[in-house]
Each structure stands twice: as C-alpha cells, then as structure tokens.
C-alpha cells in the first residue's frame, strides 16, 4: 500500500493536479463519448 491516508492519496506527492487532471479528463471523455453514442442511437430511432 502506497498511501498512509486519503489526504496523501489525493495529494499524489504534490502532483495531484497533474495526475487527477489526467484521469479526470479521461473519464469525462469516456462519459461524453458514451452519452453521444446513446443520443445518436436514439436520434436514429426517431428518424424512421
């Protein structure tokens, strides 16, 4: 185990902004892509 506490985990040795900025944006991108796919699928169904 690398982290003594939650605070240490989120601080990432002072590099928290960079590490969480990377993973946060990655998962935001995945969420956006899935939402766009769901919208596109629904739009195709309504156009028929």
């Amino acid at each position, binding site marked *: *185990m*690398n*982290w003594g506490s939650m605070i240490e*985990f989120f601080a*990432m*040795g*002072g*590099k928290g*902004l*960079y*590490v969480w*900025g*990377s*993973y946060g*944006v*990655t998962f935001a*991108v*995945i969420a956006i*892509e*899935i939402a*766009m*796919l769901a919208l*596109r*699928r629904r739009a*195709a*169904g309504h*156009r*028929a």
Partner: protein
Amino acid sequence: MPSANLQNESASFNWFKYASPQAFFPLAGAIAPWFAAFAAVLFVVGLYIGFFVAPTDAQQGESYRIIFIHVPAAWMSMVIYLAMAFWAGIGLAFNTRLSGMMASALAPTGAWFTFIALWTGALWGRPTWGTWWVWDARLTSELLLLFLYFGFMALQAAIDDPRRADKAGAVLALVGVINIPIIYFSVQWWNTLHQGSSVSLKSAPTMAATMFTGMMVMVFACWAYAIAAALWRVRCIILERELRTDWVRAYLGKQT
C-alpha cells in the same frame, strides 16, 4: 436434397455473411456489451494496480502514474488509425459497404484517444520537463494524427452520398497512414524531448514489473473499450444508412 442442406449448415459457417450490415447489426449488438464489461473490469483492476500496487517512481515521484493512461491512449490512437485505414482500404478495394461504416465508426474513438494522449502528455510534461508543450517530432506528429482524424470526419460529413464519402475518406485515411511510423519511430529518428519507449518487443521493459503489469492491464482495458464503442457506433451508422430498408423499419417498429 437433404445431403446438400446438411453440408451447407454444418461444414461451412459463412463468415462473409457478416459482411452484410443487416447480418452484422445484431452480432455487433450481442458482443459490444461483453467488451464494455471487460473494459470496466480491466479499468478497475488496472487503476488499482496503478495506484495501490505499483510503487512510487524513484525519479519522478507520483506524477509518473499518468503513464497508466497516457501510454495506452497513445498506443490506441495509432492502433485505431491503422484499423480505420485497414477497413477504409478494404472498402475501397472490394466495395463492401460495411467496411466503410467500420472506418467511420472508428474515427471518433481514435480522435478521443489521441486527445487523451495529448492532454495527459501535457499534464505529464509540465511537472517532468517544465513545459506543457514543445514542438518536438513525437508531439507534433501526434498532433498531426489528431488533425488527420478531424480531417477524415470533416470530409465525410461534407459529402452527402455515404458511398462517395466512404471513398473520399478512405483515400485520406490511407495517405495519412504514413504518419503512424513517423509517430512510432520519431523518438529514434529525431532528437526529441519526449523519451524513447520503455517497452519493446525485443527486450524486457525498463520499468518495475508491477508498473508494467498495471500499464498492460490498462492497454487491454482501452482495447476492450474501443471495440465496444466502435461496435455501438457502427450500429448507429447502419441504422442511419439503412433507414429506408424494410429490416430497419421492422427493427425500429418493434422497439417503440
């Protein structure tokens, strides 16, 4: 003739059947959730290894943990482009409709992974190199890859006839393939600020075993995710393009 029937059904499972959008549509729908589930499990396992098992890097401290998404995303950005160009080329050569649809389905996911590779690269470069961005060969050719994806999508969007859009996009995609070896070998061919690869087929990876394991699990997670997303998108494309066919009308009527 019962004997001929038997042979048809057992001896030859016809894979080419799935070259038809109508036949591929339910197949894609059946396998996409499995890849999505694999992706979810692998992301959790990969991130657990990356954050809780892999040790702190002796030189970089904790910022190196960006590697678990940066390298998989960068690899996927190139692999998806190759897959896209492959399907585009098949479509151009054999005039198969589904191939063009596959190429179009892969492009947005490839562009997203390219964006993630560039974004996480900037956030890794700042604490490591002291700069968000530098115009070295690796970063510049990866940015060009993003523009190739954008160009492919914009070109296809600008052409109304989907079959002509497929052909025009295919030419662009195939010309752009030259950029992939340039990205891959840029760190050897030029003196780049970006480091060389830590992983190669010829030698053992130059990183701790748990770091490597975490990274590879994330690579498989990204593969599974990309396959699921592309299959879901190709289903949308099939519906959009075959909207006037009886089977799509029947399928959609059944749903609502």
